[in-house]
């Protein structure tokens, strides 16, 4: 076995290789599929998480912006309702407008002496304020510009509106110089106390809120026209981003574009850019909020997850390789064994076939010899008997010689009988004997056999009893059934005691007919001989004075078996020996009579 495994038969090795390849292929496919599914799942999960985080941060920023705007607008409204401002506008005292406003807006405007804008940005204090007249034109502050907040003339001009509106107008103005910053302005209408009509507007300019989410890294900036201000983004990246943004101002009509989002690379990092209109419907030029959401963290997470999956996949593959190797080995072992065994079996079978052929030829030869010998013997015996009978018939021999000749003639009959039996046996052995399946009346046959038995020269004084139901029919050929019966009865007579008994019984049950022939015996068949009594030429340790050649029982059994029945020894003890022969019942075995 050891040697068989080390050099596995070629077919087993091939099987093993194929099995290994198939398993690996399957494993690779499974791993790849799992990899894809997991990676897609992770990517989707990440995208959803990002979406949620982004939305949450954006919502927070929006809330801050809204609250700030609401607070500022409310404040501006309160200012716009002040009686002195109304008086200055309505009572034709524009010269008193800014001085009056100075008093009213004292706490709303960053004191000019605070130079650091960051300090002022924290408070909701305006950088500057201006009034617009009924037509939306800027009412210039009379000389005291410092009080109303310094503003370059070109920016001041941008505060003008085509006309004052009932509603607060939100605008974002940027200086022509880049880096000048953007101011968030609220143009709050000053409404007539009596009629509710706008009679002027108060424009408050604020530093836009610095919206930065420290945790997520989101920064929000403002884009108006060609100016983009994003806190913490260097000018080059700002210019790069500005070029990527949709050009809304190019469209005349100024219909503000809706919210947009896209991913882009800036400064060597990936960002999710979100832009949405800040002042839709405003009379001021459209401005957009531009949010930058860093994707670096998410990408790092995704990369890490990807590496983990790849690692897991590789591990899985390695394990799978090992497993499939083992599996292939395990499965190919029985195949190798099988192959070896089948090889051995083939050899054995071939040998057995050869032997069988030889045996069969031998048997054939023996059977033919037996048949030939029987034929060859029959003729001289017949010639011998005829000669002896002729001598006896001439009457020219003395009486005692005549008795001897009669005994010789008797011997020739026995010889022919044996030859007949041998001839029959040789035909059985050669498989040439075909038994007909005729209807045989067993009861009748037994009766005639008993007649023959009575007629035989007998000085034993045997008592013969028969218990046979009438019309007991079996399937078979009459002469062979008679031969079986004759053999059994002959035996029962031969081995009997003087004055002994012979008992014949027959019965039918379940499609079979059982016939027993029992007799008192001179000596029982010794137990060690019982298995061999049906063998050819076996004569047990019977008295040598009893004639016979050990053919009868063998022939009877062969014939019984040819009839689909059997012959066996039921018992053989001190006072009784009994054989049983079985036949098929006639009607039961003939489906079509």
């Amino acid at each position, binding site marked *: 076995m050891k040697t068989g495994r080390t050099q596995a038969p070629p077919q087993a090795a091939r099987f093993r290789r194929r099995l290994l390849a198939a398993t690996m292929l399957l494993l690779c496919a499974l791993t790849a599929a799992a990899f894809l599914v997991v990676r897609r799942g992770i990517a989707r999960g990440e995208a959803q998480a990002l979406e949620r985080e982004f939305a949450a941060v954006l919502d927070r920023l929006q809330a801050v912006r809204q609250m700030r705007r609401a607070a500022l607008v409310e404040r501006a409204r309160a200012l716009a309702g002040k009686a*002195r401002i109304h008086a200055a506008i309505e*009572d034709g005292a524009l010269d008193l407008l800014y001085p009056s406003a100075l008093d009213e807006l004292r706490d709303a405007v960053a004191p000019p002496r605070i130079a650091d804008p960051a300090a002022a940005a924290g408070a909701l204090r305006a950088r500057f304020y201006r009034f617009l007249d009924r037509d939306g034109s800027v009412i210039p502050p009379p000389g005291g510009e410092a009080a109303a907040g310094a503003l370059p003339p070109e920016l001041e001009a941008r505060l003008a509106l085509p006309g004052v509106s009932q509603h607060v107008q939100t605008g974002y103005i940027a200086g022509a110089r880049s880096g000048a910053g953007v101011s968030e302005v609220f143009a709050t209408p000053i409404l007539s106390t009596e009629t509710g009509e706008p009679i002027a507007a108060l424009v408050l300019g604020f530093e836009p809120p610095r919206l930065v989410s420290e945790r997520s890294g989101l920064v929000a900036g403002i884009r108006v026209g060609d100016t983009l201000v994003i806190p913490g983004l260097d000018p080059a990246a700002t210019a790069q981003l500005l070029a990527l943004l949709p050009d809304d101002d190019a469209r005349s009509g100024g219909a503000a574009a809706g919210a947009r989002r896209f991913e882009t690379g800036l400064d060597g990092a990936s960002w999710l850019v979100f832009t949405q209109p800040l002042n839709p419907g405003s009379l001021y030029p459209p401005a957009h909020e531009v949010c930058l959401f860093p994707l670096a963290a998410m990408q790092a997470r995704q990369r890490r997850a990807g590496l983990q999956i790849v690692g897991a996949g590789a591990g899985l593959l390695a394990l799978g390789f090992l497993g499939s190797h083992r599996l292939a080995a395990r499965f190919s072992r029985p195949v190798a064994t099988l192959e070896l065994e089948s090889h051995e079996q083939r050899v054995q079978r071939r040998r057995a076939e050869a032997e069988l052929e030889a045996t069969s030829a031998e048997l054939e030869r023996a059977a033919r010899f037996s048949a030939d010998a029987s034929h060859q013997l029959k003729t001289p015996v017949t010639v011998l008997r005829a000669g002896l009978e002729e001598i006896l018939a001439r009457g020219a021999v003395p009486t005692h010689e005549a008795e001897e000749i009669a005994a010789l003639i008797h011997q020739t009959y026995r010889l022919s009988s044996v030859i007949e039996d041998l001839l029959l046996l040789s035909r059985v052995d050669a498989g040439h004997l075909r038994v007909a399946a005729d209807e045989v009346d067993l009861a009748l046959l037994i009766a005639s056999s008993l007649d023959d038995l009575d007629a035989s020269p007998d000085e034993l004084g045997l008592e013969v009893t028969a218990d046979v139901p009438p019309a007991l029919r079996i399937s078979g050929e009459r002469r062979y059934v008679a031969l079986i019966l004759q053999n059994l009865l002959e035996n029962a007579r031969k081995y009997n005691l003087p004055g002994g008994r012979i008992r014949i019984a027959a019965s039918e049950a379940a499609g079979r007919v059982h016939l027993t022939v029992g007799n008192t015996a001179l000596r029982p068949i010794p137990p060690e001989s019982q298995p061999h009594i049906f063998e050819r030429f076996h004569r047990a340790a019977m008295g040598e004075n009893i004639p016979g050649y050990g053919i009868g029982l063998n022939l009877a059994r062969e014939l019984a078996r040819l009839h689909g029945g059997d012959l066996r020894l039921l018992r053989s003890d001190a006072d009784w020996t009994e054989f049983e022969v079985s036949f098929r019942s006639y009607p039961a075995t003939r489906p079509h009579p």
Partner: protein
Amino acid sequence: MIPRLHFLGAMVAAFCVSGSVAAAEPAVIEGRVTLPAGREAPVLNQRYEIVSKGGVVAPNPPVAVVFLAGDFPAAEAQPVARMLQKDLAFEPRILPVRVGTKVEFPNLDPTYHNVFSYSKPKRFDLGRYRADEEPVPYQIFDTPGLVTLRCDIHEHMRAVILVLETPHFVVTDTDGRFQLTGIAPGAYTLKAWISSASTLERAVELADGARLEVNLE
């Protein structure tokens, strides 16, 4: 009750002053000023308000100030009028005065008021004061024209003082009816101030003791 009495008292005093100027038998002008339609907005109280619309100041529901323009001798004594702050409103909403009139602004509310005006004929700011302010804050109006009064604290409070160069003036009722009495005979121009943008006028000739019926439209 008391402020109304004050007001009536002031009016009576003004009329008495103007009436005493005439030497001859005084004449009377009465009639009706055709007033513009009032605003559709329902007026909860029947008192009119001063409305400034499109830069035009007008009372609503519309009333007119009818006055007589001409040459009148200077007043013998400085006329005095009162503009009350009562129930978070000025009372009256429209007060015609002769040039040089001293107008007092008593605060009858239990809260602060701050009367001021940015109007060109008279800019002033009385500051915040309460009812117990002594003496009662006042201003002398010596430039003819329209002065809009406001309260710094109560943005809705509004009143106008019409400073006129005549002792003869009266505020019509809401139907536009008026009566000017105690006028010396002579030639005048009868004017009706309807809003800061609209004044009706007509020349009148008054005989001694005449009773003239004039409708301005």
